[in-house]
Each structure stands twice: as C-alpha cells, then as structure tokens.
C-alpha cells in the first residue's frame, strides 16, 4: 500500500493533468523547510509533503480573492474543510471554486491536536479514525473539576503571558472582521502588555459559534496559552445548549443568530 503522501501526489496529478485545474494548494518541502505552495505542474509533486499541518483555509481565501474566477484544488484535512465551510457561511470563500482532496488524519495526529473530528466529510486519502472525545482532554477535565474562582485565576495567569502579537487572530480562519475591535483603543490599550482580560474574551465571544477547533491559534502562540482548551470548553457548551457544531454543513446557521427568531430562549 502506498503512503498517504504518494496517494495525495497521485490525486494532485490527476487534478492538474486530467481535470486541468490551474493549481493545487498543498505543502512543499524546499531548502529543508515546509510551507504552503500552489503546485501548477505534475513535475513538481515529489516535493509535496503532508507535515507539519498548516491551516489552508486562509491561504485558499487569499488566492481566490486575488483572482476573480477559476478553480483551485486544495489538500484539506478535516479542520481545513470545517474552516472553509464556516468561511463560506460568512461569505468569505466560494466553495464552488474549490476542489478538496480530503485527507484523514492518523490516530496520533488526532491525539496531538486533541481533535474530535480528524477527517473531512469525503475522505480521498487516509483512514478514518475516531476523534478524541471531548471528555478525554485531561486539561479540560482538570479545569472543570475546579470552581469558578480557581478557573478564573488559571486563565488570568495564562493570559498574563500574552505579548499581544495578534497571532491568534491572524491565523484564525473564522476571525474575519475588516475592522478588528482588538485594534480599538477603547477596548485594548495601546502599548500595554499583557493586555487586560477582555482581549482574550472578546476573541472568545467573537468566535464562540464559529470556532472549528483547528488549533491554529494555539500553535501560533509564542507563549503557549492553551487557547484550544478555552474554545473547546465554549464549543462543548454550544453543543450542549443548542446541539450545534460549526463547520459541518454550509446550510446550517449558527444558533446564536437564529435561536431567538425560531425558538425563543425560554422554550429551550
């Protein structure tokens, strides 16, 4: 059996040669480094690799925005697909212009990301493995066992390390505002590090019904704030209260924008 890498290369080759796609976005190893790259020719595919995991959704958006028409292929893991679905809901990408090569993550990769759904809807390459159940996350369990004051103290000590690089916002596929309130003086004081608690809570509120738990924010954080744990907790509440998970279906609207119209809160 071929490795997932070899299988993906073959899929990409098919899209370029047989389906005449102008380009397929994947990862390229060059000069001993790996980064996103658009493959235009089947001749370059030996450089296509699958690790480390980069978020592809924002790169797709930048490319599609810059070229008014034409399709793009993309090697997409489960988190990439969910990010693209959420971005499509928000009018950020046109899914009809994308051709996804669905890549399922391995069990080890799922554990590394504490991913609950380590596969896209259609799997082209790789085997579907069960995700990590939300209850299996030791960090989440540890926090939930504590009272509110202890949890607040925990988060404050984590947020105190923040150097306000804005990396969490910059890599987030569902953080989409053109004018970001985190750059407004009335919310976030300029020149002050660490920022006050609202900095992180504003972001948590803004993505509360959109976060697909890709973990891009946490992996971009220079001071290792466990942001995925924070968002996983809020996603668990969303699931519990509204039975809703972002990123699964482009026609499914967020309960935070529809609930009060369709089902008044007191009926929930």
């Amino acid at each position, binding site marked *: 059996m071929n490795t997932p890498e070899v299988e993906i290369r073959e899929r990409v080759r098919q899209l370029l040669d047989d389906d005449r796609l*102008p*380009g397929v976005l994947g990862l390229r190893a*060059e*000069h*001993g*480094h*790996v*980064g*996103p*790259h*658009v493959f235009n020719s089947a001749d370059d595919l030996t450089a296509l690799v699958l690790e*480390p995991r*980069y978020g592809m959704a924002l*790169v797709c958006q*930048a*490319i599609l925005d*810059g*070229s008014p028409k*034409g399709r*793009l292929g993309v090697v997409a893991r489960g988190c990439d697909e969910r990010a693209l679905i959420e971005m499509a809901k928000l009018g950020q990408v046109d899914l009809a212009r994308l051709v996804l090569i669905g890549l399922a993550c391995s069990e080890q990769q799922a554990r590394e990301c504490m991913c609950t759904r380590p596969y896209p809807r259609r799997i082209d390459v790789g085997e579907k493995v069960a995700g990590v159940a939300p209850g299996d996350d030791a960090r989440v369990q540890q926090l939930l066992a504590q009272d509110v004051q202890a949890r607040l103290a925990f988060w404050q000590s984590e947020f105190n390390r923040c*150097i*306000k*690089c*804005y*990396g969490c916002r*910059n*890599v987030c596929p569902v953080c989409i505002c053109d004018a970001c309130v985190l750059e407004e003086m009335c919310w976030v004081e300029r020149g002050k590090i660490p920022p006050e608690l609202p900095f992180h809570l504003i972001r948590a509120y803004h993505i509360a019904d959109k976060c697909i738990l890709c973990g891009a924010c946490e*992996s*971009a*954080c*220079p001071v290792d704030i466990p942001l995925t744990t924070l968002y996983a907790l809020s996603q668990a509440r969303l699931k519990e209260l509204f039975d809703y998970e972002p990123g699964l279906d482009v026609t499914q609207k967020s309960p935070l924008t529809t609930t009060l119209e369709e089902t008044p809160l007191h009926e929930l």
Partner: protein
Amino acid sequence: MNYRTVLTICPYCGCGCGMYLPVLDGCLGRPIPDKTHPLSQGRLCIKGWSAHEHVASKDRLTKPLVKTQGEFKEVGWDAALDLVAARLLKIREQHGPDSLAFLCSAKCTNEENFLLQKFARAVIGTNNVDHCARL
C-alpha cells in the same frame, strides 16, 4: 493567478524568526510563520506579523526629503547626501566627534552594520554606535 510563497527571515531583530511571504500576482500578503523553522517554530511577534505592511504603504518614503523653512521638499540623492555630509562635518568641528551618534539596524545586513560602525569610529571618531533592536 500566480501565487508563490517565499521563504525568508523576519527582518526586524536578531532572533531571526522564519516566515513565508505570500506573493499573489506581485502583491505581498501577510507573512505565514514557518512551522519548520528551528527557532521560531511557527510563531512570530507583532513585528514579524506586520513585516509586510510598509512595503506598499502610502506613507512609505521613497525619495529623500529635506526640511527647509518648516516644509519637506523632495531633493535628489546627491543633494541629500551632500547636505548630510556637510552637517556632520560642521557638528564634529564645532562640538567634537562625541556629539554625534550612529544608529544601525537589525534590518540591515552584517556588512552594512559593519560599515556604519567603521564610519562612526574610523571616519567620524566616536564610539557612539547603537541599534534599533535595543528598543
């Protein structure tokens, strides 16, 4: 559509974090942190995240300006350099070499920084040399 990512190093300080600069049809986009860089491992600070902004900024200076009677006026490079040289010499003559200081930059190459300190020490005669990475 021509999309490229160019592997490079953050130009701001001596840490040298790795980043890819995305270029779409000649337009530079926001850096993508290099996850395989041994030092930065996919992380950047605010300076690295903003490293592309000045390139196409409308506030960017592209020509020398000289302030005369409270207003900036565009001049040629020769005129600008003549003015700087004349003023440096005059200040040194009047107040001595230690009345001058030279700021290098982590954004320059080693060779450029070497040249500036050489200029400060050997030509002007002062050890007042510092650099922006101490900000």
